């Protein structure tokens, strides 16, 4: 399948997501990067059993072509929903933070939060 198979691509996507998570300071974009990480893992699972000449997992099975493994597809549905739940809740929390700190810049929020805190060491 060459280099352009789903698994390799998903690993590259994971790398892109990691860099986004580290380098983008805006929380909204950090969350998008987080979603990308999860999507990458999902793509990885779905591409495990995929063959170009396979058939979607519906009965009755066609005689000529092999069915694609349905299990990764089924479990991935849960993963997509979980991904959504995390993104929605995190966004709500970002909204609450913005109300208090007036910024979505992670480092600035960090500084303000540290400044508010009594010394604890």
């Amino acid at each position, binding site marked *: 399948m060459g280099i*352009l198979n789903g698994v390799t691509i998903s690993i590259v996507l994971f790398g*892109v997501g990691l860099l986004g998570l580290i380098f983008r300071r805006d929380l909204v974009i950090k969350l998008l990067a987080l979603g990308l990480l999860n999507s990458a893992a999902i793509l990885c699972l779905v591409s495990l059993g995929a063959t170009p000449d396979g058939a979607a997992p519906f009965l009755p099975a066609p005689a000529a072509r092999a069915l694609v493994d349905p299990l990764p597809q089924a479990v991935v549905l849960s993963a997509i929903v979980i991904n*959504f739940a995390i993104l929605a809740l995190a966004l709500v929390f970002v909204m609450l933070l913005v109300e208090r700190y007036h910024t979505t810049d992670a480092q600035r929020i960090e500084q303000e939060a540290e400044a508010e805190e009594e010394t604890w060491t």
Partner: protein
Amino acid sequence: MSALPVILGLLPIAAAFALTRRRRLDAIIGMAVFSLLLASAFFLLHAPDVAITEAAVGAALVTFIYVLAIRKTGRLTVVASEVPGLIERAGGQITGFEYEILERLAGRLGLDLVVQFVAREEIEDILLRGDADLGAGGILSDSDHRLLWAPPHLPTARFVIASRGPAAAVTEPVPFRGYVADTIDAVRRRSTLCMTVDLARFLAISRQNLDAYDVRRIEEDAETYAFVLGRSRGDLHRQLSALIVSLRASGDLDEMARRHFP
């Protein structure tokens, strides 16, 4: 089946494109495009169930809520050191002379005004990095050529603060241009001193106990306060200059000054 490698190849490009956008709206739309591509990849990988769910959840619902949540209008980000009378927090709100000018500027430009309070010495760094548009908070006009200076909006009065007692009488006042916090600290320590300070520092100090000092106002307006902008904010600089000039011409500036400094 030749479409699959193409779409798979596009995926990292779309993701990298989305995550490097400067504007959040662009990034969100970019990720929506990514999700659609991903859904079609799932379809071509013989996973129609996953494709439908990804399109409905990843491409539609997530995009909706993110687009709804973010603000479409731009912001005017101001970094300021807190100075009484000029720009200060009072009861959950921000008030002051400079803040009022900034509000008018934001209103004129149709931007949301966001003020972040930082230490005085950080303002130049932040502006040079381009993390904020404008610096405020009793900044004395300076000739720092790395930054843009708006026309002065307020002349500062000068105050001499001298310790009572025989030691002070012979000392010449030295100009004290340290940061506000340093000045307050000096007074709080009740160290023997004799110095001249500008209006902003005086206002800050006057909240301390000044029993131990003689205070007198010098009627000589040597210096002025001005806003400071990053080098790349030329257009904003023009708008702000025009605003200050028109405010001064209409007399609003004097009226505001009287209101904040009775």
